């Protein structure tokens, strides 16, 4: 009988504890810097794309969710700093396991995983994101 009362007392104690639930879409909990959420393709200081289309991210990806196709930078209006840039960069976010291997693989710090993680759509195609979705806007 004492055990029962002790149990009731314990649950009663929790009635006054602060709630653990975060009212998510309205409020967000803080995310650590290393959080592996959605990807971005970064730009360098001059506003050029960091990605040079080397395809190491695609090679490192254990689930083959990244497709990169490279081409030569147009003379006079380059996309990236080197000779080469990625004209196509696609991630199948439904396949992605957010392991961060691509970020680790990128020698140019172009692909990065950010704390952003809201991923929502009714259509499968929306999860196949391309360069326009990934690349951060020019400052």
């Amino acid at each position, binding site marked *: 009988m004492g055990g*029962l009362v002790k149990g*009731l007392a314990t*649950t009663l104690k929790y*009635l006054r504890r602060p709630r*653990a*639930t975060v009212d998510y879409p309205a409020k967000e909990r803080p995310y650590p810097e290393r959080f592996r959420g959605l990807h971005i393709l970064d730009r360098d200081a001059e506003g050029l794309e960091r990605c040079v289309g080397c395809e190491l991210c695609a090679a490192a990806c254990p689930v083959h969710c990244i497709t990169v196709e490279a081409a030569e930078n147009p003379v006079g209006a380059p996309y990236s700093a080197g000779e080469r840039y990625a004209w196509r960069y696609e991630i199948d976010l439904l396949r992605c396991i957010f392991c961060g291997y691509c970020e680790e693989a990128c020698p140019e710090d172009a692909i990065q995983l950010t704390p952003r993680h809201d991923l929502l759509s009714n259509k499968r195609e929306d999860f196949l994101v391309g360069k326009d979705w990934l690349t951060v806007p020019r400052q």
Partner: protein
Amino acid sequence: MNPLLAALLRGLLAILCLLTAFAYTMVLERKVLGYFQLRWGPTKVGPWGMLQPLADAVKMVLKEDIRPAGIDRFIYALAPGISLFAALAIFAAVPIGPNAAVTDPPGGLLYVLALAALGVYGVSLGGWSSQSKYALLGSLRATAQMISYELAMGMAVLAVVVAAGTVSLTGVVQAQASIWFVLPEIVAFVIFLICATAEGNRAPFDLAEAESELVAGYHTEFTGLRFAMFVMAEYIDMIVLAVVGALLFLGGWRGPAPVPGFIWLLLKTGVLIFLQMWVRATFPRLRYDKLMDFGWKWLLPFAFLNLAGTAIIVALRG
């Protein structure tokens, strides 16, 4: 006014009140459990989630109405109705104030006990008719459990009846003018509480729908409105038995003056309901055989002894 018409109106009003009470007991339970469990409970529909029942109702109505193959259609359709009817009908004889009842027959308490026992038909028939092994096991458990605990509850209530000297609920309340029965009849009160919880199929006696064992027990195969009727029955049972408990042991609508009696009754009922929720949040579920053991080997003898003791004391005073 035609007394029949008046009774009918009172009945309708009672049903309306009960349904509203059901809706908000459910919100309350979800809120209370949430707070026990470091959560918020419903917050999204309406302010503080207060319109949640409405959303639930809409959801239940819109759900696909599944009727499994090979069922006994008539009984399958009837069972939730029996449960709900029994739960609603109990209230007809429960006064919520002096002269405030749908009808207040002299033997009201007997009527209450009788109808409380009727609810088990809905549960056992529903489980039996739905052609599912889990549901069958659930309904068998419910039947055994309710019969076992019915006796102990009867004995506990009988002790109060003996003490009050009447089987009218109004009479019982009036008999508590000097002292609430919860004090002299504490054993009966505890037994009544346990049995009421078991009667209402609530944790830790929720064997008939034990989720981890029987998926959803007797209502595994019910969806939509039918399922909703079972849930309504369960909650209304809980409310009504809490009201009856308040009437029997906590002095009903009696209390210090400025607050109206109705509020007192509501408060006492609320305390009893909260107690059930608290227990649900805390305790594990009993095992089937232990539940039966407990009912027959502990509760019934104690209830009997208590009744005998009460009777002797009343006789000695008498």
